[in-house]
């Protein structure tokens, strides 16, 4: 059995006021004199046995009793009693509130969302906040946002809680936990409460320095949503692939409508078994740029609305521009056999472009070409000159990254190489990485193929010249060239397009050092400036809809942003969160806070005050009408 506790025991000193109360009460008993015609009747009244009955004796001092009770109530209220909940009492309690997309799911049609359910529970915590307790509200989505400092101001906490809204992004707990860890360095934090629907990654890369109370909210209703959209160019048209997932609750049917530049062009009807997904393919003409919008219209109740609309922007189809010097005959030969490739310089040695989608060259001077993807053959970059030398010995491929896009399906075994890159003494792989290089193929004495990303533009370096190897005679060589072309097509967005998911806008190449205004679907705008390479990055896109990029009031681009998160749309929840060392299970009981009792005593005191007033003002019983 638990006993009430007191926050402010110093309030017990108020009980000493009982002493002057009693003293003043009896001093007050100097009764007012009142002349009456005769005492005869009143004396007989006092001789009546009823007057001297125990209850009547008690009533004589009822005023003192009521006043003493009133004072006791006030003193108890000042001591701020509370009824312990049984849980450990935390003075500083951070509350993490999941605001990811799945928290917007409703339990029933017209019902409340998971976030509203969480707010309801947190509101109880705020209402029962004791004077020495501080709460800090932290909204968790793909990032973490601290809404309040540690505060006991209920109005501030309630206002902050009311302003929390669902962000249609995937949930990620690490940032919030790290933020809480930082808070724990300033105040003693023993327990952190997490309110979520359980739709979070089960494995969390974080070492818990505090106790995590995982409050899992009741599950939402059934949901169906679009979880992926991408397109692949197929000749003159685009094949648009739309993936639709349904939750595990029940079978669902829905209609899917495709709009191109705001005009409906196709629709489909699908039926999903519980927990299954379905892929729908649409065919879209690829002549011009297209802004696609896919709308999902569930036939029944759908708990999450934010995943019912997705956007996809398709670029204009064009041939890939590739630069390859005439000396690299092997590469040019392989490139000629590929479709939609315009090769520069042409066979007659003429022609050229200001920029290329792909540049394959064995000339050090071509490193300055404006190319989206650069493949350098037999050229040692200047920044690697101290790390590696190339001699004329035979080199042998020891291993290579088979999953690297450039080397996919390329077999380098037994390739004879007449140039041998040799790492300088004491140089290790880490030294290349520090220079920004990634080793794709490793020889016995040093790296053979390297990759470097600069401002989003990949560059590949073959430290040996392919013409001095048997690679051009291998089956893998045309595959290698095809991989390079596909990389360039992907870089230029010509081969395929993927839907932009919420979170951050994908980096976009625009004019360098130019200020752009990015307007969100709800009308809020942010101003961002491109870097020297013209890259616009780091713009938050936390809403589903179209973001407009404007330069001086003129729209230069429009980007459709969609939820596109299978985990959020599935509304699946995890019962255990696996941290690095420990696992935290969802609490089976609702978090109960210590219940403050001072309002009860304050109300009781007020009632006693009213009772005292009523008792002495009421019309006594037995009076004639």
């Amino acid at each position, binding site marked *: 059995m638990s006993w009430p506790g007191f926050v402010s025991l110093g309030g017990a000193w108020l009980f000493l006021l009982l002493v002057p109360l009693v003293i003043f009460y009896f001093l007050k008993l100097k009764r007012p004199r009142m002349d009456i015609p005769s005492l005869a009747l009143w004396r007989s009244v006092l001789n009546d046995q009823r007057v001297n009955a125990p209850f009547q004796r008690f009533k004589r001092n009822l005023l003192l009793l009521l006043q003493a009770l009133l004072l006791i109530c006030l003193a108890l209220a000042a001591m701020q009693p509370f009824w312990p909940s049984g849980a450990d009492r935390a003075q500083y309690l951070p509350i993490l509130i999941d605001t990811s997309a799945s928290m917007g799911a409703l339990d029933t049609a017209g019902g409340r969302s998971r976030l509203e359910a969480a707010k309801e529970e947190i509101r109880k915590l705020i209402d029962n906040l004791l004077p020495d307790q501080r709460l800090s509200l932290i909204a968790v989505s793909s990032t973490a946002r601290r809404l309040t400092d540690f505060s006991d101001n209920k109005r501030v906490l309630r206002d902050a809680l009311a302003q929390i809204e669902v962000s249609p992004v995937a949930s990620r707990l690490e940032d919030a936990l790290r933020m809480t860890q930082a808070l724990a360095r300033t105040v003693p934090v023993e327990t952190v409460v997490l309110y979520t629907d359980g739709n979070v990654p089960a494995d969390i890369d974080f070492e818990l320095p505090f106790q995590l109370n995982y409050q899992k909210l009741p599950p939402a209703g059934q949901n169906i949503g679009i979880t992926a959209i991408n397109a692949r160019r197929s000749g003159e048209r685009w094949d648009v692939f739309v993936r639709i997932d349904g939750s595990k609750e029940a079978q669902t049917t829905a209609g899917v409508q495709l709009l191109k530049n705001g005009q409906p062009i196709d629709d489909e009807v699908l039926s999903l078994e519980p927990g299954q997904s379905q892929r729908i393919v649409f065919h879209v003409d690829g002549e011009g740029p297209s802004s696609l919008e896919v709308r999902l219209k569930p036939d029944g109740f759908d708990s999450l609305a934010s995943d019912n609309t997705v956007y996809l922007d398709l670029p204009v189809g064009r041939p890939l521009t590739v630069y390859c010097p005439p000396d690299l005959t092997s590469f040019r030969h392989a490139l000629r056999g590929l479709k939609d490739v315009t090769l520069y310089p042409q066979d007659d040695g003429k022609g050229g472009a200001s920029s290329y989608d792909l540049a394959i060259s064995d000339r050090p001077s071509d490193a300055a070409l404006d190319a989206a993807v650069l493949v350098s053959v037999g050229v040692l970059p200047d920044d690697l000159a101290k790390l590696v030398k190339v001699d004329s010995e035979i080199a042998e491929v020891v291993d290579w990254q088979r999953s690297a896009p450039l080397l996919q399906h390329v077999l380098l075994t037994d390739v004879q190489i007449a140039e041998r890159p040799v790492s300088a003494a004491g140089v290790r792989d880490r030294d290349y990485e520090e220079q920004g290089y990634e080793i794709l193929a490793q020889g016995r004495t040093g790296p053979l193929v390297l990759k470097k990303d600069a401002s989003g533009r990949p560059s590949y370096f073959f430290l040996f010249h392919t013409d001095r190897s048997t690679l051009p005679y291998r089956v893998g060589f045309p595959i290698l060239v095809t991989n390079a072309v596909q990389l360039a097509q992907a870089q230029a967005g010509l081969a395929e397009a993927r839907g932009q998911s919420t979170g951050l806008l994908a980096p976009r190449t625009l004019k360098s050092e130019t200020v752009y205004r990015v307007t969100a679907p709800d009308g809020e705008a942010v101003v961002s400036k491109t870097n020297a390479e013209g890259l616009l990055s780091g713009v938050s896109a936390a809403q589903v809809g179209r973001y407009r990029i404007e330069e001086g009031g003129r729209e230069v681009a429009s980007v459709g942003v969609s939820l596109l998160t299978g985990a959020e749309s599935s509304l699946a929840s995890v019962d255990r969160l696996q941290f690095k060392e420990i696992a935290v299970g969802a609490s089976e009981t609702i978090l109960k806070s210590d219940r403050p009792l001072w309002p009860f005593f304050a109300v009781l005191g007020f009632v006693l005050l009213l009772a005292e007033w009523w008792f002495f003002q009421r019309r006594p019983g037995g*009076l004639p009408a």
Partner: protein
Amino acid sequence: METVTASAQFTKLLDNATLSRLEKMRLNPRRRLTNRSRGEHQSGKGGSSTEFVDYRDYSPGDDMRYVDWNIFARLERPFIRLYRHEEEMHVVLLVDASSSMQFEDKFEKARQLAAAFGLMALMGVERVSAYSCNHVGTEPSCMAPCTGRVSRRRLFEFLEGIPAGGDFPIDEAVDAVLRRHRGRGIVVLLSDFLTFGDFQKPLNRLFSAGLEIFAVQILSPTELNPEIAGDLRFVDCENGQTLDISSAGDLLGIYHEHRLALEEELGILCRQRSGRFLSISSRDSLDWFLFDLLKRKGWVQ
């Protein structure tokens, strides 16, 4: 509205209109307690007045002058004619003038009622005497018996001149009056009857003295419906004794029960002695009491 000046009034106690109405009213006692001195009040006994009452059979020795010969001629049996005997009745007015009557016009009301009863008696050619008692140990003030219309002025002057104040309980006042009074008739007791004494003995003595009791209890509105609360110290205005009361508001119910019980007890004591009892408020209308209530209760006719 016509304003009647004080000088035009016959008495300060009652206005002239009331006086003129009272002059036509007579007391209506239940018992016919009269004195042998001749008067206008009809006694219960057979008499020699001219007012016929009844017949009875002749008995040997009866006065032959009262035989109705006409009936004897028709029935051949002698019947004696009976006539009402008219004798004088003594009306005693006893006004409680103690300090307790000074509250809220109680004493004024008592004097007005005494004047009214006295006037009705004088106009009925009864003998009227009046007493007022103030202080214990002193003789009650007395107006000697008088009769007839001419005694009105004397009665009113006595009543107007009664001093207020004192501690004479009404029960002891009755004894003091009976020590001086002689004669049968009616005694009108005008008091609040708030005394520690026992009323049984004085009422018995009044009954034994041949006085029919007309008791009027006059209470003030404060006594009828006290509005008090909290802890108080009551002071008796007559003897200065004190009584501490706690939570007076809670005792009001019991107070009213005791007040009504006293009223009931007085009524029973009076009725057991063929008397009458009424309790009124000092704020009650005089006209209502004299011309409505008394008539309805049969006190006057």
